[in-house]
């Protein structure tokens, strides 16, 4: 079946602009995660959605970052007033509940000039 998809695959933007990244999880997966991967580093947790529960936003690095999820489907990660240090690959993952392995999308490579 279809895996996790993300769009766009690449995004180049100017400092100060807003960007919106999209994630389509695997159908039926109730849990959805956003991570950030800086060059040469591991994954950094950003935010977690589980069903209709309030999201865990504890990993968001600043108030410029926000995310939404519509039910158990699409999620968008928004970065306002982008800075150069926001340049990274943003990965989305979904899982069937919170006890199972996460399946990752291909990521969106964000470059802030």
């Amino acid at each position, binding site marked *: 079946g279809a895996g*996790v998809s993300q769009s766009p695959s690449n995004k180049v933007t100017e400092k100060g602009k807003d960007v919106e990244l999209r994630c389509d999880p695997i159908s039926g997966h109730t*849990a959805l*995660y956003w*991570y950030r991967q800086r060059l*040469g*580093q*591991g*994954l950094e*947790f950003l935010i*977690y959605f*589980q069903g209709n529960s309030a999201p*865990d936003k504890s*990993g968001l690095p600043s108030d410029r970052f926000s995310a939404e999820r519509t039910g158990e489907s699409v999620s968008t990660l928004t970065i306002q007033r982008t800075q150069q240090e926001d340049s990274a690959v943003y*990965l989305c*993952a979904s*899982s069937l509940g*919170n*006890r*199972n*392995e*996460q*399946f*990752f*999308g*291909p*990521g969106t490579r964000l470059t802030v000039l």
Partner: protein
Amino acid sequence: AQSVAQPEDQVNVAEGNPLTVKCTYSVSGNPYLFWYVQYPNRGLQFLLKYITGDNLVKGSYGFEAEFNKSQTSFHLKKPSALVSDSALYFCAVRAYRDYGNNRLAFGKGNQVVVIP
């Protein structure tokens, strides 16, 4: 808070030789442990996991990993490496619980280079 250490930046191995990628972890209580592989310009792919039961777990592509509670380790192994195994490998851990965030703590990754 949980954490993972992958002490080597890069692992070089000749094709056909055994491959080992090291991982040690820190977590409160019992761990869930995972290995993921990342090929160039692609997302992470799940390889295997340890939840409970046998300490030796087998996963995709001939990989296996051994959970060692006393050494808090979960090293990834493959008896005979292939050139196509060249990739970035991540170890991850979360605490064992039935509620809340399945947040994974990832190591920084190990680049594996298999030399023909």
